């Protein structure tokens, strides 16, 4: 027979266990980790998780150790030995019924408490962000500031956000691993998930994902969440409220005067050891600031905070390679003014896309492009937002993102859905112009 089953079993289990610890150690390399929460909700969940992990590991070690011991101790030694023909043992049965029951009680009680705390109605004064799921991109609306954007949101640190989740088509699910758990977007239902991002945290970008299978491009339905200082947020809002305009000089600065009233951070970080108290959610008692008077362009230009590209972390910048099928002359220099004409003309972009301030561009099928130039990524986080990618996207969006409903606009391009080659469409120079226009929309 085999030598020592214990040894052989220990090898795989051991290796994985070691590797497990090794990896759990360095969370820095895991930009979407759920182990390092940055909000009250995240921490409430993490508190439960730690407890589950503790008991789970305990049970795991107990059972596997017992198994390994029994395998080693009672492996066949001698065929003549006749083991005792025991049929059972009532006290034992009772013990190993009760112990799990007790363990589960320790899990169930905080679970139920957390459920009721985290699913309470969002506190008054929370900032509302309406989330609309589309195949396969995200539409965001700030009703309190009448700001509309797509696939990228800014939220002020320390201010409770109430996400109101709805879908325009199939089911989707809204997830920012580092900030909170998931909530589904379901037709004929309005869902909420709310939390307060920590007041003390980096001004940085978090990845968001769609986590309910929603069809072909479910894998490419990402979004970005930028946590910023309240003052910066105010400045960003002012900027977003401004209509799309050319060549806005985007200054990371934020003169106080130009920012609308912003709520101060409301929740001190909660100590994790505080046990149950750790699951109490912050209840900021603040009233939403009045939407500021729609600012003039110049005012917005003065104060238009956008997270500078240099401080966008690498994990928030897509690395999806360009499909080789689409060729484009990247040395072409476009003319934004002509691009604007094409946008509402030959390009027919306005059929689906809106650009505030451009009366002719009011489409609602596709993402709002008012400030597309300021966004990190395009295609719902699939490609980095720069000229080469924009150009190819416009030229043949359906090869860039299979299943995409955005039509193939380039002339003489193969449309994988219609299975035909386009006879009409935009020439490369025209596309370059549109790209210039879009990039100018900061």
């Amino acid at each position: 027979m085999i030598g020592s089953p214990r040894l052989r079993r220990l090898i795989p289990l051991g290796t994985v266990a070691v590797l497990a610890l090794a990896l759990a150690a360095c969370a820095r390399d895991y930009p979407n980790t759920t182990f390092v929460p940055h909000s009250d909700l995240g921490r409430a969940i993490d508190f439960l998780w730690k407890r589950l992990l503790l008991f789970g590991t305990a049970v795991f070690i107990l059972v596997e150790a017992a198994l390994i011991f029994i395998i080693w101790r009672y492996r066949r030694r001698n065929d003549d030995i006749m083991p005792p023909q025991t049929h059972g043992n009532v006290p034992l049965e009772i013990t190993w019924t009760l112990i799990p029951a007790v363990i589960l009680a320790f899990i169930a009680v905080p679970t139920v408490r957390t459920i009721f705390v985290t699913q309470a109605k969002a506190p008054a004064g929370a900032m509302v962000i309406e989330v609309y799921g589309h195949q396969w991109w995200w539409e965001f609306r700030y009703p309190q500031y009448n700001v509309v954007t797509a696939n990228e949101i800014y939220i002020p640190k320390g201010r409770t956000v109430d996400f109101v989740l709805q879908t325009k088509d199939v089911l989707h699910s809204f997830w920012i691993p580092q900030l909170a758990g998931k909530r589904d977007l379901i037709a004929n239902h309005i869902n909420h998930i709310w939390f307060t991002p920590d007041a003390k945290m980096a001004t940085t970008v978090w990845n968001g994902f769609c986590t309910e299978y929603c069809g072909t491009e479910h894998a490419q339905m990402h979004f970005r969440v930028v946590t910023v200082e309240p003052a910066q947020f105010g400045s960003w809002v002012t900027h977003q409220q401004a209509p799309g305009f050319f060549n806005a000089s985007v200054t990371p600065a934020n003169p106080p005067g130009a920012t609308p009233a912003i709520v101060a951070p409301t929740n001190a970080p909660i100590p994790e050891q505080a046990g149950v108290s750790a699951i109490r959610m912050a209840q900021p008692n603040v009233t939403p600031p009045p939407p500021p008077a729609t600012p003039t362009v110049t005012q917005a230009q003065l104060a238009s905070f956008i997270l500078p590209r240099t401080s966008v972390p690498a994990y928030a910048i897509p690395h999806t390679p360009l499909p080789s099928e689409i060729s484009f002359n990247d040395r072409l220099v476009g003319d934004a003014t002509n691009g604007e004409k094409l946008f509402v003309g030959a390009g027919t972009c306005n059929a689906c896309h809106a650009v505030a301030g451009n009366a002719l561009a009011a489409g609602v099928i596709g993402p709002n492009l008012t400030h597309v130039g300021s966004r990190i990524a395009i295609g719902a986080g699939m490609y980095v937002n720069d000229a080469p990618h924009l150009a190819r996207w416009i030229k043949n969006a359906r090869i860039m993102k299979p299943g995409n409903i955005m039509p193939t606009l380039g002339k003489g391009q193969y449309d994988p859905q219609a299975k035909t080659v386009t006879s009409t469409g935009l020439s490369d120079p025209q596309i370059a112009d549109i790209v210039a226009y879009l990039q100018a929309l900061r």
Partner: protein
Amino acid sequence: MATTVIGPNVGTGVDTGIETGVPGLKPFTPSPAPATVHSYKGGIWSWLATTDHKKIGTLYLFTALFFFLVGGLEAEILRMQLGAPNRHVVSPEMYNQLFTMHGTTMIFLAIMPLSAAFFNFLIPLQIGARDVAFPRLNAFSYWVYLFGGLFISIPILFGHGPDGGWFGYVPLTTRAYSPGINIDFWVLGLQILGISSLAAGFNFITTIINLRAPGMSLMRMPIFTWMSFVTQFLIVLSFPIITIGIFFLLMDRFFGTQFYEPAAGGDPLLYQHLFWLFGHPEVYILVLPAFGLVSEVLPTFSKKPLFGYPVMVYSGILIGFLGFGVWAHHMFAVGMGPVADSVFGVTTMLIAIPTGVKIFNWLGTMAQGQVRFTTACLFAAGFVALFTIGGISGVMHSSPPADLQQTDSYFIVAHFHYVLFGGSIMGIFAGIYYYFPKLFGRMMDEKLGKTHFWLNFVGMNLTFFPMHFSGMYGMPRRVYTYDSGQGWDVFNRMSTWGAYLIGVATLVFVFNFFKSRRMGKPAGPNPWGAGTLEWTIPSPPPPYNFAVLPTVTSRYPLWEGKEADVESARINQQSGKTAEQLGIVLPYDTIKPMFAAFFLVLMFVGLMTNRWLLAGAAGAMTISLYAWLTSPLEPEHH
């Protein structure tokens, strides 16, 4: 005290001596292993027309193993694609079809039928019956499964495979968002497979209630039969629910009803409730038979009766009951409200208790034993080790707030592969290695078997353990690719290597299986020195199973049995006599059930393609059904 050795001494070449524990019981020398093994004679026809539960079981086994390979191959392609970031082995559309069909195949075409193979082959042998209650219905179930399986599996070869995920959530699967025929195959295919499972369910419930040999009281039933019994009830009570849930979708897609039409007020959550009301019992349908097999293997190789038999029975029943009260734990993210979340969270946790009891009783069975680590026993022990891991991650999901971080991430994928692969599949492999000799009269190669086990065990953990991390580090499931720099690369690479390893392991198994069938050592009636009824008859069993119906006096007739058991065992092992010689009537062979099944599936094809085919198939089906019902099951005999 006087000891009597029962059970031959062949096959593994290890002493399988067992005390009867019955004082003064005369020694029993069984017929030695035959030099040659009689295999089922008769050509292809005898398989098409068979009503013999053993042959039907064999058909199930081969078909299900084939589909297991297919589902595995699909998984291998999934892993190939995910082996590195932004890889494009297959298109997004194909990837979505692959994971949908991988899940559907493994659950409905691999594991359930593998269990069915054991129901068919074992239940009559374990309860001392000559066949199932309705032999022809049994054949019908198999053929419906085979044709239905092909119906749902073939489209992917043409790029039209179902692509809605294995639970096909609406509205994604309605015409509006899935206009193609892909989902039609899934919707109709599941209806077909449901018919097969339901027919088998009625059949086995009746068999177990009504065909137990004299003295085989419920509390003497082998635990595998017990777990199968519970499973059949789960099938019979849960399949109608999904039948309706999917029938609505069928109506929506084919006849323009509005059940899942959001614009008309249709509610996607209704579908989810109907699906998971079936779906959760389903997962216990997948694992309870494995529980049963493990509970047969461990006692034999520990030379001890199952520890806490009654508790094992009751916990099995309890799991079955609780299984109907936890479905919404698959819906913690849909916003059911705090009350529902709490209720379903807690009921879900409760299931851990009876399941734990089972784990501990298996440990108790091995403890103080003389555990002989044959391949079968290794798989059984591996089952206990791995299922526990999957169970614990299950309990981690059962806390709704915590699940908000876990749901629809790879952490879930890790959970259900530990319970499905580490649980169901490991248990079923234990069963295959254990019962192979009884099925084919030959031993499987232990060397290859152990290679299979260790490759499988290491590969399994290498594949699925890292998924816990990719999941908790934020990787959503059902994504055809992922970007680099997300911290997921290393885990995915491990999973992919692991998958290849499992693939190799599986090929070793396939090789061993066919090699041993041809040239394995002749087994003899009871190569493992087991104690239950199926081992009192020759391997493979004669068509009539038992020359004399045994009179059962204990749970392990060959270990604890009285004179009567030993006596009938001795007679039953004197094989060679034909049914006629013994004056036993057996059902006729008949091809009618196969035709009925074929035309039934053809009707569904007609529903998809053209009305005339539908009508024609319906007619043909009625005719074959009439022919079936009006022809006698077996010769008259007075």
